[in-house]
């Protein structure tokens, strides 16, 4: 019960407040002219960050040193190969999805293989793996830009009842991961491992199996994000995953999950993802140049983290 209570009590509230404040500041500036379209764009782009952020969150929950740096490369490879496989053929949409998931499974298994069998620290293991995966993507991409099947690109850019489809997908996945984390035995296990791997092992938790599953889920979610992102943007690009390295880690931390592991929450991922996109669009509407925009983004992130950290330590 304690884990459940802490998750509900506070840590994620900061990210939602920050997102709300940024939204209001942006809308005030535009005079409410584009509130609706801003909301839809925010939901769409935040959903991509949410999908990768959820996986990264589970990995980070495993405790200090656990982080998956292969997320961007997995996004790129799965986007590239899935589109290549489907080759604009609508009848291959589902098999294409399976290809993407298969890539995720492969990367996840390879990641944990390096971590467990070669006892390489996760940061370096996933980093080396990302080099290999990225190379594979470069090799298979060959500068070709294959369009997604029309139906699929219509789905990824479309809406249902005014809500972007991507956001619906993101929400569904979030509920699933929330259930895993907060309701299932697996969630208790990863939190326990994050709090003390030794105690978890002593308590008879299958530590290796749980960690293995976590890295696989993270890679599969990244692959899924790559599949959707490539369809959404009308083709795969070699740098399409690049921004999601920082993004996936940032949304976890801004969302109030403990960086040292053992205590994570799903709502914060949404709050932080909305916030991250809103900051960029706010700075855009204010008409700042690229340099100022980047700088302010960084300073705002740090400010939110400092604000959130005080709250945590006061607890």
């Amino acid at each position: 019960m304690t884990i459940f209570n802490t998750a509900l009590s506070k840590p994620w509230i900061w990210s939602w407040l920050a997102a709300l404040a940024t939204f209001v500041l942006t809308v005030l500036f535009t005079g409410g002219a584009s509130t609706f379209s801003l909301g839809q764009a925010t939901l769409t782009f935040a959903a991509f960050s949410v999908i990768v952020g959820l996986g990264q969150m589970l990995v980070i929950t495993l405790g200090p040193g656990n982080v998956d740096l292969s997320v961007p490369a997995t996004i790129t490879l799965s986007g590239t190969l899935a589109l290549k496989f489907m080759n604009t053929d609508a009848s291959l949409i589902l098999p294409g999805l399976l290809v993407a998931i298969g890539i995720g499974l492969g990367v996840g298994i390879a990641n944990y293989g390096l971590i467990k069998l070669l006892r390489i620290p996760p940061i370096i293991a996933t980093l080396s793996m990302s080099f290999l995966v990225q190379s594979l993507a470069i090799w298979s991409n060959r500068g070709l830009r294959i369009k997604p099947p029309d139906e699929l690109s219509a789905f990824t850019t479309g809406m249902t009842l005014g809500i972007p489809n991507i956001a619906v997908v993101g929400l569904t996945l979030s509920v699933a991961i929330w259930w895993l984390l907060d309701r299932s035995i697996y969630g208790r296990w990863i939190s326990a491992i994050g709090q003390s791997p030794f105690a978890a092992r002593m308590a008879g938790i299958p530590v290796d199996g749980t960690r293995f599953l976590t890295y696989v889920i993270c890679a599969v979610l990244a692959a899924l994000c790559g599949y959707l992102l490539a369809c959404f943007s009308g083709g795969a690009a070699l740098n399409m995953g690049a921004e999601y390295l920082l993004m996936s880690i940032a949304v976890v931390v801004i969302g109030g999950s403990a960086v040292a592991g053992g205590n994570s929450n799903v709502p914060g991922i949404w709050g932080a993802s909305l916030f991250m996109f809103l900051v960029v669009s706010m700075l855009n509407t204010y008409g700042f140049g690229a340099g100022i925009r980047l700088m302010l983004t960084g300073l705002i992130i740090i400010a939110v983290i400092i604000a959130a950290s005080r709250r945590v330590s006061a607890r």
Partner: protein
Amino acid sequence: MKIKISADHIRLLIPLVSLAVLLVAVFWLQPRAMSYLGLNLLFNLAVPIALATIAQMLVIAVNDLDLSIGTFVSFAACVTAVYMPSTPLLGIFILAVAIAAYAFMGMIIHLRDLPSIVVTLGMSFVWGGLAVLILPSPGGQAPVWLRSMMTAQTPIIPFAIVASLVIGIVAHLIVMKSTLGVAIRGVGGNARSVSRAGWSVLRIKVAAYALSGFFSVLAGMALVGLTTSADANIALRYTLLSIAGVILGGGEFVGGRVSPIGAVVGALTLTLAGSFLSFLRISPDWQIGAQGAVLIVVLGLRLIFSRREA
């Protein structure tokens, strides 16, 4: 004669052996590389990477991780290329302020007990933004003295190797021999006992970050000396390369166990891994992949050796 080999020696031995094996493989594939010019070309770009790796190592030594090194080196390179040739004093002033900012970042991280990964991640946006402000499009130029220093013709041994050696030795003296270095590694090992011994952990951490910033600035300057111009994205991959170099060189993420000489060797190995593949005539598509593979192989070797030791 019997030499007792400690764990620390094995730590250093593996990166050295890996480097030697790679070097032999390169020579075998391309005998012309076995010359003054060849070696210089092979290792030229290793100098800034080695400096960045030392910078990363100093942060890792206090159990933190710096994800902003790539953008910070790019920023330093932009400042060097824009201000150093015409107004060197202004350039030096900006870089000094940047190093102070680095020290300040270390202070915030310690005082607020913030995760270094996230703060440096946020700072990477800040440095990236500043670099774009200073140099919106690729350009600038290297100051003459820097250019001539980086392309200096040292007798017999190529400059790139001399420079790497000097970097390694200086870093070794700072981190392994000086009082400050011992304190820095001590904070990584057991911060509480360091503070019980009457040291200020805050000061030590600030010093480690400041030193790290200083080495990153040197990396940026060395890079401009080699490439003669800069752009805001020039060194982004240094973040990951520097982390890999530290680990490859026998460092560990926690416990203050780092090896400056190993880190330099690690940086050289990573640089060479790229050249090795191009000599194998494998398409450049696989260059990054090769670096990943080399990392995995070397770390796998380390496991075998450490098991034998145990």
